[in-house]
């Protein structure tokens, strides 16, 4: 699966969809594949503060634990509650139903384009 061109990316293998002042965040297919089958997702509380590059959640697969970094400053306005029951959505549809959190951001750091991210993961 290609990395969608309409999204921005981080070196921590997260994708970001910017719509007005809300950023939807997930992990890329590359990251989901590397983790293996995801069995548990620990997400922050709605209303909590997101701080750029601070850990705000955990993604566990059968074999390993990945950390979710907030890609920007802001406030958590939504989390994907469906992942409690179906964490494997992150594997099945990483760029869609497998989204993780929504942040009302107060500032945007430099993010990678899909072309730059493709180059990072060697696609």
């Amino acid at each position, binding site marked *: 699966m290609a990395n969608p061109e309409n999204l921005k990316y981080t070196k921590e293998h997260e994708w970001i969809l910017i719509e007005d002042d809300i950023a939807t965040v997930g992990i890329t297919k590359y990251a989901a*594949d590397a983790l*293996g*089958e995801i*069995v*548990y997702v*620990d997400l922050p509380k709605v209303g909590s503060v997101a701080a750029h590059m601070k850990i705000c959640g*955990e993604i*566990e697969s*059968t*074999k390993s*634990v990945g950390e979710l970094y907030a890609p920007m400053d802001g406030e958590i306005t939504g989390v994907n509650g469906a992942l409690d029951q179906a*964490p*494997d959505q992150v*594997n099945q549809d990483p760029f869609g139903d497998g989204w993780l959190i929504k942040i009302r951001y107060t500032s945007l750091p430099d993010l990678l384009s899909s072309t730059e991210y493709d180059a990072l993961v060697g696609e």
Partner: protein
Amino acid sequence: MLNTLLKLEHDKLGASFTEFGGWEMPVRYGSDIDEHHSVRNSCGLFDISHMAEIRVTGQAEEFLDYALISKLSEIENGRAKYTMICDDQGGIIDDLIVYRLDDDEFMIVANAGNQHQVVEALKTRLENFPDTRVVDESGLWSLIAMQGPKTKEVLGSLVDVDLTVLKYYSIATAVLDGKDVFLARTGYTGEDGFEIFVEGDPSGVWQLLLSQEGVSPCGLACRDTLRLEAGMPLYGHELNKDLTPFAANLGKVIRFDKPSFVGKDALEQQKHPKQKLFGLQGDGRRAARADYEIFLPGESDSIGMVTSGVLSPTLQVPIALALLNADAGLEIGSEVEADVRGTRIFYKVVELPFYKRGR
């Protein structure tokens, strides 16, 4: 890194790979949880050609009685035994399956990462056995494991021997896909199944087995969750040179009635180890992993560490093997806590194995 002869087959199936014991091995082909369930419910096919095969011939039964901790002279031709090779301090060099091929011939299967240590230890112990030979045949053999309740039926239709009479922990020669192979009724998943020793190019055998209905290719990720559910130790996690078989609750593998064997004196002094392996089961979906610390409830002093831990795909609860202080007063049902990255998670001590197949 080394590749098995089936590397091309794994590539064709879109496998992801991981390093294991110096080998590049398939970790999963698709979903490791689906692969896990296919072994529990149907039939899974594993390339385990990274495992080492060592043939011992000559005065082999006397030699192995001396070199290993079990009594190999006692097993009949065509039977197998789970055993260990220890150093003279009683530390575990490796755990092994030993197959008796003939009166004077045995095949040892050792872990990939321990191949050289095992071969070297065996050769060092040959000193008083001039007529015995130890030959590392790892390069000659590919090993394919076929595991799960449908295995006997699927494999049985492809070979010239009656698999229903091949007992658990036995080995026999057979013809499969026109090749002479060994079929061993052994495995590392907690299910019934067979391990197939193939000499030369194993691609044809692999393709034939995989083309059968109900057979899925399986990687090392599910091999690990399967063996952990079955309570089986993995060298490097539950077993190492600093531990004796007693620490792994495998003291019964040792045969002290043998006149002498490497490690005997040291092992006799270590029947009550400071730490022992326990099975732990939690609830929820968060699993303590290897090296996470374990505590008595509310206490701040660690009583030991998790050696392997995962969310069990079959039981749907976290399970773990943990090496814990023998004097901590633990028994079946005792509650403990695991420190999961800063959060204490409840576990209780349970009987092993976590999972046992229906008969």
